[in-house]
C-alpha cells in the first residue's frame, strides 16, 4: 500500500474529507437530513465492508448478510424494551449473539460452494427474518420503537446526532483498518488462497474450512455492530432490515464499489445511497434506471467503481 498520488487515492481522500466535514456542512446550512443520510451511509458502509471481507476476499457470497443487521438491532431493541439500556451490556451481547449465529450458519453452509452457498445463506437469512416477524412481544412485523438509545454512562451521548455520526465514522474507519490488517495477515492470505484455489490449498496443507468459518464469524460480528448502530440511529428496529432484498442491496453496494478492495464497499455504499436519493427524486420507478446502471458497471468494470478509478481489472 504505497500512498501514491493516483486518481483512486485522491478520490478516497476526498471522500474521507467529505465524510469528516458532513456535520459541519449540516450545521452551517442547518440541514439535518444530510447528517441523517450520511449517518445511514456510514453505518451501511460498515455492513458492506464486513460483507466484502467474506465475499471479496474470501469468495463467500452470502445472500443473508442483512440478517446480522437485524440481529444486532433486535438485541438493542429487545434489551431496551426489557429495561436494559446500558450499552456496556447491550453491545457485547449483540456482538456475541451475532457471532454465535454466524458460527452456526457458517458451520452448516460453508461446506457448499457457489450457487448452493448463495441459496443456503439466503434461506438462513429468510429464516431469521421470519423469526423477527414472529416476535409478537416485540412488535412482530410492525417492528419495535426504541425509546432510549444505548446508554454509555455519560462517556458517550449517542442522542447527540453529531457525536453519534462521528462515533459511527470512527467505527467505520476502524473496520476498514481492521480489514486491511486482516487481509494482509497470514489469516488473510489463507482466506484469499481458499477463494482462489481451495483444492490447491488443501494439497499444500491448509485445512481451509476453519479459516473460512472464522472469517465468516468475524464478518457477521462486524455486521451485527452495524445493526446495533442502525437501531440506535433510527430508534427503531423491524424485520424489514433483514429482508433478503436488503442482503441483495449489500451485495450490490460491494460489487458497485469494488469487490476485494479496501475502500470499495464505502465507495459503493455512498454511490448506492446517493443514486437512490437522486433517482428516487426524479421518478418513483427509479430502479428502472438504477438496474441498467448496475448492469453496466458489473459488465464493463468488474472491479466496480474502485476498479475503474485504479484503471485495472480485478478477477
Amino acid at each position: 500500500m504505497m500512498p501514491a498520488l493516483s486518481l483512486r487515492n485522491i478520490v478516497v481522500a476526498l471522500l474521507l474529507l467529505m465524510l469528516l466535514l458532513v456535520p459541519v456542512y449540516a450545521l452551517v446550512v442547518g440541514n439535518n437530513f444530510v447528517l441523517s443520510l450520511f449517518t445511514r451511509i456510514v453505518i451501511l458502509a460498515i455492513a458492506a465492508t464486513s460483507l466484502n471481507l467474506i465475499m471479496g476476499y474470501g469468495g463467500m457470497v452470502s445472500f443473508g448478510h442483512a440478517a446480522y443487521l437485524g440481529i444486532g438491532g433486535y438485541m438493542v431493541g429487545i434489551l431496551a424494551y426489557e429495561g436494559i439500556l446500558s450499552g456496556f451490556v447491550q453491545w457485547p451481547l449483540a456482538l456475541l449473539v451475532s457471532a454465535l449465529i454466524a458460527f452456526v450458519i457458517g458451520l452448516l453452509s460453508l461446506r457448499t460452494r457457489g450457487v448452493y452457498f448463495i441459496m443456503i445463506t439466503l434461506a438462513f437469512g429468510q429464516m431469521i427474518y421470519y423469526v423477527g416477524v414472529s416476535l409478537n412481544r416485540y412488535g412482530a412485523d410492525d417492528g419495535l420503537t426504541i425509546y432510549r438509545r444505548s446508554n454509555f454512562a455519560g462517556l458517550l451521548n449517542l442522542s447527540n446526532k453529531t457525536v453519534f455520526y462521528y462515533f459511527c465514522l470512527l467505527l467505520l474507519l476502524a473496520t476498514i483498518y481492521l480489514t486491511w490488517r486482516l487481509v494482509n495477515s497470514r489469516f488473510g492470505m489463507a482466506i484469499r488462497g481458499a477463494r482462489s484455489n481451495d483444492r490447491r490449498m488443501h494439497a499444500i496443507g491448509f485445512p481451509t474450512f476453519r479459516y473460512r468459518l472464522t472469517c465468516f464469524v468475524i464478518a457477521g460480528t462486524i455486521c451485527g455492530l452495524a445493526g446495533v448502530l442502525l437501531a440506535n440511529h433510527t430508534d427503531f428496529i423491524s424485520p424489514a432490515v433483514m429482508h433478503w432484498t436488503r442482503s441483495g442491496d449489500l451485495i450490490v453496494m460491494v460489487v458497485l464499489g469494488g469487490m476485494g478492495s479496501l475502500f470499495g464497499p464505502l465507495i459503493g455504499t455512498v454511490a448506492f445511497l446517493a443514486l437512490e436519493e437522486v433517482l428516487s427524486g426524479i421518478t418513483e420507478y427509479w430502479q428502472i434506471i438504477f438496474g441498467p446502471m448496475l448492469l453496466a458497471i458489473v459488465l464493463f468494470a468488474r472491479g466496480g467503481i474502485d476498479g475503474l478509478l485504479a484503471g485495472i481489472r480485478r478477477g
Partner: protein
Amino acid sequence: MADALLRVAELTKRFGGVIASEGVALDVADGELHAIIGPNGAGKTTLIGQLTGEIAPDSGRIYFAGQDITALPTHQRSAIGMARSFQITSLFLDMTVLDNVALAVQAHAGHSFRFWTPARSERALRAPAQAALARVGAADRGNVVVADLSHGEHRQIEIAMALATRPRLLLLDEPMAGMGPEESARLVNLLRELKKEYTILLIEHDMEAVFALADRISVLVYGRVIATGTPAAIRVNPEVIQAYLGEQQAVTGHG
C-alpha cells in the same frame, strides 16, 4: 520391502463402470525415484488423487512411513510430508509467484490464526519461498502475477510449490506435460538433482526422461499394475511392450 516410504495395498477405485484402480499394489522405497507409466486413462492421476486423499478409494490401504493414512485428510498428508504437483496446472492465478509459493511455506509454519502482522513482510515465509523458486530456476519471477506466466513457467511453479512444503515424498503428475524440448531437458536436470534429496513418484509420458531418471518403473494399464521393475527389465518385458511401450515407441518414432 521393509523400508518402503510409501506402500499401497489392493487399492481399488471405480467411477461408475470405469475401473480406474484395480487392486493396485505399489512400494516406493525411501530415496528412490519410482516412475509410473501407462497409456492415457490408465488411472495414473486417479492413483495420485488417492495417495493425496483427494479421492477416496473404494477399498485398499495406503501406508506412509509405516502409518496407515488411508483415512487421513489431504491437508494432514501434506503435513506429514507428501506433496503433489498437478498434471493440469492448479495455482493461485490471481496472486504473484512469490505469494503462491509463500502460501505453501505458510501452510507448514504453524497455524494461520495470525491476524495482524503482514504476511508479505515475514522473512520466515518469503525467504524459503524464494529459495524454492531459485531451486526450479524461477528466482527472478517472484513478482509476476501467475496468470501472466507461460505454460512452461506454470509447470516450474507447480514444482516449486511442492518443494516449499518441505516434503519427504514428491508426487509429480506429468511435470513435463506440454513443455518444449528445451524446457523438458532442464526439468530432467532438475529432477536428477531433486532425486538426491527426495523420494519421488514420477508420472511421465516422456519415455526418454523416465528411463534416464527412474530407479524403478511400474506400468499401469486399465487400472492394473502389470509390471514393476528396473528400467532395463521393463524395457524388455513382453507384456509391457505389447500393452504400452510398443505403441509408445511407434508414436515417439514419428517425432
